[in-house]
């Protein structure tokens, strides 16, 4: 058994806490059942199911901290893990940044658990693979894909009276469709908490269409182009920008968010005024847990409004150093979008490039948030409001900050990797060389 309900989790952690004689003790108890199926060359390559349960006990004496883990929860095991954590704490050097456990907190009830996702069976996973492989075979295409799902819980309790519990489910799907002559490649991805939103055939069909449409791509000169970025493309760059919303690295002077002369860019306008994004664990499309691993409540937080930095994340230690309230790092990002569909954005574009996704994104300069990477699996030239022809892939060198200053239009939002991100039209996006990769 690896999934415990709220009462069971509470009972197990209460039993463990009774063995503690440390100044403070904090327990995280979690369990998960996950399954996956992988296919390539139009056949299933691997499939598996894993289950795990784990308890981590953190004991502290003053600022000396020790952590021990165990996966059995009878009294003897619980006593053993608590005593081991205490012994490790006694042997450890003082941790200057240790923060004592929080007291009781109030959390909203999350929307992260969907029974139907928890009920996913091996047969269902096989059907997902078949929904890719069968239409691929009929179109002279080779499918390769991966579907994985998880059903789990997280809970915590500490010696200061805090208790938190969350159940969640999730599924992720990616598929690559390659034409058998090797000249076309398409891709699509889907992720949901609720598997009933997922249509494997629809997602596979999009990848097939992109593969067929991207055959015999033409080379055009690298340079600055207007681009329409699908959310699967922009998310890689945006996520790297979100990571920079960290007060400590900004205050220390080693982040894009650091300011000349010291301090950080809180309150400064850094991108186009139409850019606003926030995080919200209660969003019905991208729900997340309403508490963090150290028990901080997660609430809606506006990070950027009208291009102005409104919040940076402060962990409890750094918040105390700076005399401010802690701001936990978010578990999702929701960027405000517009009404335009992808078709509308294409229709309104005189000359531009449609990008399905970016690949192998790596940081080049943390000072300017410059990143490099490549387009992949469907890159198309747009002329006079229509997709004219596929083009060869490009390498880009671009900063999300420059990109968001060059915003033309925001389109509709799409769930991508647990976030809500709009289609975006951007001018002067920097492509620096061509790639022969398909």
């Amino acid at each position: 058994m690896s999934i415990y309900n709220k009462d069971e989790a509470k009972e197990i952690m209460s039993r463990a806490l009774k063995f503690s004689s440390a100044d403070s003790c904090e327990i995280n108890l979690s369990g998960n059942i996950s399954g996956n199926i992988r296919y390539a060359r139009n056949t299933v390559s691997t499939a598996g199911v894993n289950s795990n349960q784990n308890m981590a006990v953190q004991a502290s004496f003053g600022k000396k901290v020790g952590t021990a883990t165990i996966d059995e929860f009878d009294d003897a095991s619980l006593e053993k893990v608590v005593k081991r954590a205490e012994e490790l704490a006694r042997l450890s050097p003082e941790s200057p940044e240790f923060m004592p456990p929080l007291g009781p907190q109030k959390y909203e009830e999350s929307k992260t658990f969907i029974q139907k996702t928890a009920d996913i069976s091996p047969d269902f996973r096989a059907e997902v693979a078949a929904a890719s492989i069968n239409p691929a075979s009929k179109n002279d295409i080779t499918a390769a894909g991966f579907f994985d799902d998880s059903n789990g819980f997280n809970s915590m309790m500490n010696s200061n009276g805090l208790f938190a519990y969350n159940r969640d489910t999730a599924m992720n799907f990616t598929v690559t469709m390659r034409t058998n002559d090797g000249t076309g490649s398409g891709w699509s991805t889907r992720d949901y908490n609720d598997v009933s939103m997922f249509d494997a055939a629809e997602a596979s069909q999009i990848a097939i269409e992109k593969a067929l449409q991207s055959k015999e791509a033409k080379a055009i000169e690298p340079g600055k182009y207007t681009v329409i970025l699908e959310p699967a493309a922009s998310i890689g760059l945006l996520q790297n920008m979100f990571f920079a919303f960290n007060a400590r690295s900004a205050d220390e002077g080693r982040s894009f968010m650091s300011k000349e002369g010291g301090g950080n860019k809180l309150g400064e306008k850094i991108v186009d005024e139409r850019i606003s994004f926030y995080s919200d664990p209660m969003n019905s499309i991208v729900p997340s847990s309403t508490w963090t691993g150290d028990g901080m409540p997660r609430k809606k937080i506006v990070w950027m409004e009208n291009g102005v930095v409104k919040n940076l994340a402060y962990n409890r230690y750094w918040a105390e150093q700076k005399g401010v309230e802690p701001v936990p790092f978010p578990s999702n990002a929701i960027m405000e979008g517009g009404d335009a569909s992808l078709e509308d954005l294409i229709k309104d574009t005189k000359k531009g490039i449609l990008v399905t996704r970016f690949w192998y994104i790596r940081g080049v300069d943390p000072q300017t948030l410059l990143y490099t990477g490549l387009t992949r699996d469907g890159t198309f030239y747009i002329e006079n409001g229509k997709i004219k022809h596929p083009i060869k892939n490009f390498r880009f060198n671009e900063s999300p900050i420059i990109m968001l200053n060059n915003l033309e239009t925001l389109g509709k939002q799409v769930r991508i990797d647990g976030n809500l991100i709009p289609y975006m039209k951007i001018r002067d996006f920097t492509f620096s060389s061509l790639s022969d990769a398909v």
Partner: protein
Amino acid sequence: MKRRNFIHTAALGAGILAAPIPIFGKNIFSAELLNPGMDVATKKAMADVALNTARSLGSTYADARIGRYLNQYIFTREKMVQNTVNTESFGIGIRVICNGTWGFASTNDVTPDGIKKATELAVSVAKANSKIQTEEVILAPEKGHGEVSWKTPILKSSMSVPVSEKVELLLEANARALENGATYISSALFSVNEQKYFASTEGSYIDQDIHRIWPTLNATAIDKASGKFKNRQGLAAPMGMGYEYLMPDKSEEIKGAGDVVLYRNRYDLVADAIAAAKQAKEMLIAPSIEAGKYDLVLEPNHLGLTIHESVGHPLELDRVLGYEANYAGTSFATLDKLQSGTFNYGNELVNFVADKTQENSLGAVAYDDEGVKCKKWDLVRDGILVNYQAIRDQVHMIDQKESHGCCYSQSWNDVQFQRMPNVSLEAGKEKYSVQDMVKDVEKGIYLVGRGSYSIDQQRYNFQFGGTLSYEIKDGEVKGMVNDAAYQSNTQEFWNSCAKICDKDDYRMFGSFFDGKGQPSQVSAVSHGCSTTRFNGVNVLNTGRNI
């Protein structure tokens, strides 16, 4: 049971690790890292339970891997120990062939009952999968090796060195970096010990004890007034060595161009931390490079990553065949290029060898994770593509009869598959030093250490930067420069190779956490080379004003 956590740490500088660090197993005391674990006779008896059960259930082949995986990670910044993690993971993974199909199962219940149940599960998985299998597994022959053992030839186990001694070394390095102008400094030490026992129905009982080590550091210099900051990472390579790697030895130091000190089989963490602090400060005032064509002089701890990405990955046979198409991608080095016997991967100076036996390398073992005796083989000879990397169930696809011996699994509870062996560029044959090389360059850049790296999904187009960059003009190093990154195409790049330094300059770069597969597994791999010159490569200026 599967327990896997990840450490997300800000202690490491940007670019050192692209992904969170995987943590396997349960936390233990550091003293427990020295416990002997299960004795060999018991391991053999346990493995035989798996093999006999598999046979009795109709398997035509079976192997069992009993693994004890020990990790110790220590993280520090400035005067503080941020985290010390000691973990142990122990269990058995059983792989069988039934009805011509693979099945795999694993358990941490290493008892006859637990192993029997896991083996039954592996057989049932194979039988179920055989219904949808379209191609029968064909294994290249491999004779049984009997009862054999092997150990990484270390001088001093890192696990035997007290945590306090390691912490003292890391904090000493931090202190010296701060004294020498670093605004911030972080350092870390990763020690790994894999105790692996392999047995197969073909009569192999192989006991191996494998050690790896990796010290890292990142010094940051900040100019508060301008808001500028620069990072200089450590120049150590992860190695298949013991703690002796951290015992400085002047005879293992190499003087690079631009007064850079480089390291071969011994590393001086404190000296490198001091250099890192000074060089990070120097970067703050160094000029920005002018974009254009340059001759590149690439130091091994830099070029190793270029080899990894542009030679190691594209020559993995599973990528070539499309098994990784949905994740890492496929390869430009298609079967027809191998079969032609004329494909110029590089020019005639370029020779790449795969080697699972190279001393001090991360990939060195005597036998791979399917019991194949490890060896060395050519991938590119005199510039021509001559082979791939392939394992027992793959070599028949390229009409070969013998596995290359490069099968690996990151733990007992993951199934083994083809992983990159050490892939290295052979040293130049004539006597030629880095200093000789610099003298011969009119307009060039000397790049040291790993920096930004990115390559496309078929491994044509890449872009790399370094930890340190120096401009070379008229045969002399002019000074440090910022914002240099080069872009090229794999075949074009290796055909622009102009000169390779001799074996005295040869040393290894390593990747400690190389990821592949879905679900992803990590492996560790080294790449050796000497400093090498490439003519007329396109260099970008990556500076931006925001």
